[in-house]
């Protein structure tokens, strides 16, 4: 590149300043990426929700169960093609900090309802054959270095006692954002051992033939169980996941606010730095113009310098964020989907360059407008 050394030499004349400016880009982009990852982790349930699945809960609250008898009544509704159910277990493995979700699932239907979770046939058969069997997600297995055949004790908090399970299989997700931090065991085992709410399940998941009929079917289901001791509240799986996220507050707004403040501050810092850099080099820029470099060239040179700083700093920040996320969920299970997708990296890079451009444009314009005679007269 013919002018590469001019850009580079402009940046390297004040190495510490350039380093700090690039560092501020790195910090901002690292923060941006992590915020986006956190947002993605909260949003993951919404993003992966099946368009053809409805969730049926107790109208009172999610912690109130529904009768098992509803299964057959749901299955008979025209437009419903499949029904499964599950129960939240809420146990503790070794320590409260080792949080991960445990579900008692219907062994006959759960696998068909969620084909995005892939379990090898042999392992699923072993699970069906063992009343104390469990299937764990591959992220969970990796987290605790569990393998098939291990016996796992879990202390019940809702359902008292120590519950022991034999790991019979490991499931993986078909998509990168599928949650593989879950622990599944058989609902019939739970129902047999629990001392209360026998014959009740936590919620139902219903598959419908036509996603466009979801609104009608939601109404049909809730009307079916209206005025019963266990009225229902039905939602699409996406709406259910979204409402779950909403319970934690307006995460989106919070993250957007933090991100905006960070980028605005970055813009001021980088803009100020470039303005100082241009002022310090007034004479040199004037010499460039005197020997025949055009205003446009000087403008481009200054902008190119900020873009290089933005690209290097932003690249470092995004790279560090990627490395950070490769280590997995740092919260011990609260954010199972802790992943930096390429789309966020591209967006981050574009943002860094946009901020670089905005920060450089005013100093670049003042450099371009510089009158050679005036600039050379200054000491």
């Amino acid at each position, binding site marked *: 590149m013919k002018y590469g050394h001019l850009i580079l*030499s402009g940046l390297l004349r004040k190495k510490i300043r350039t380093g700090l400016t690039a560092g501020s880009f790195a910090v901002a982009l690292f923060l941006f990426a992590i915020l986006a990852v956190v947002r993605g982790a909260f949003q993951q349930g919404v993003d992966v929700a099946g368009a053809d699945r409805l969730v049926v809960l107790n109208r009172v609250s999610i912690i109130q169960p529904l009768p098992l008898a509803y299964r057959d009544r749901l299955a008979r509704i025209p437009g419903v093609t499949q029904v499964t159910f599950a129960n939240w277990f809420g146990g503790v493995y070794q320590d409260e900090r080792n949080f991960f979700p445990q579900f008692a699932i219907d062994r006959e239907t759960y696998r068909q309802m969620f084909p995005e979770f892939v379990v090898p046939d042999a392992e699923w058969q072993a699970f069906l054959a063992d009343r104390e069997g469990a299937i764990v997600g591959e992220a969970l297995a990796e987290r605790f270095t569990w393998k098939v055949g291990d016996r796992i004790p879990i202390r019940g908090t809702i359902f008292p006692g120590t519950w022991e399970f034999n790991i019979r299989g490991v499931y993986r997700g078909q998509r990168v954002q599928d949650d593989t931090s879950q622990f599944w065991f058989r609902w019939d085992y739970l129902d047999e051992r629990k001392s209360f709410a026998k014959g009740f399940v936590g919620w139902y998941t219903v598959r419908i033939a036509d996603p466009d009929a979801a609104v009608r079917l939601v109404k049909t289901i809730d009307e079916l169980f209206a005025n019963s001791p266990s009225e229902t509240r039905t939602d699409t799986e996406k709406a259910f996941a979204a409402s779950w996220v909403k319970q934690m507050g307006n995460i989106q707004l919070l993250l957007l606010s933090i991100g905006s403040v960070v980028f605005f501050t970055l813009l001021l810092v980088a803009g100020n730095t470039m303005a100082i850099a241009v002022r310090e080099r007034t004479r040199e820029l004037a010499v460039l113009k005197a*020997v025949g470099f055009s205003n446009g060239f000087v403008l481009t040179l200054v902008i190119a310098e900020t873009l290089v700083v933005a690209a290097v700093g932003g690249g470092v920040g995004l790279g560090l964020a990627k490395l950070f996320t490769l280590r997995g969920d740092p919260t011990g299970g609260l954010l199972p989907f802790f992943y930096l997708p390429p789309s966020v990296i591209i967006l981050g890079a574009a943002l860094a360059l946009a901020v670089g451009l905005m920060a450089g444009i005013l100093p670049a314009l003042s450099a371009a407008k510089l009158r050679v005679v005036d600039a050379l007269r200054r000491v």
Partner: protein
Amino acid sequence: MVRIDGRGDANSLIRARGLSKTYQRGSEAIHVLQGLNLDVDAGDFVAFMGPSGSGKTTLLNLLGGLDVPSAGSVTVAGDEITRMSARKLTAWRARHVGFVFQMYNLIPVLTAFQNIELPLLLTGLSKAERSRHVETALAVVGLADRMHHYPRQLSGGQEQRVGIARAIVADPTFLLCDEPTGDLDRKSADEILDLLERLVGEHGKTALMVTHDPLAAERARVVLHLEKGVLVDTVTAGRAR
């Protein structure tokens, strides 16, 4: 041949007619140059002398296309530069003018080689061709062994020689030197003046130099005196005569 009476012929390399420059300072108009005429032929070495504020540097800036006059015209090799757009004037400068500054004005983060190469970046020359030109310029100024040194690693005289190499590397039509020895000790100043003399005498360059130093002016073939914005006389000077 240098004339200041406005009667030079159309073959003059540099021709200024009725050149005026007025600055406005508040309500006060400062007339730096007032209807100045000048004709300089190719191969001349002209020194401009005069007290501070007499308009020497302003004249140099106008002749070099760095500034525009309030009135009058400047024609160089048939091109009337005072009618050129800013963009065209920039391109013209790159092709026709080599500037030598009092403070050298080298870019401190570039090596001598890279500083000299700057004007060539604007040409269509290949990297190898640029290198060849830079090495030739370095040889002319006697700094071939310092090409990878940074300005801070050079003496003042060496820095100015690099400045001169930068000015001549693109083979401009003429050189404009603004106090080229003003920041140098006597010995270094003499070396620079020797170099300028050689460029004119041996390489056929045309050089216009502003100076306060009578010894420096003596090296020129013609010395012009400026007073209050007017060229008052020409003196055929010095050793080059």
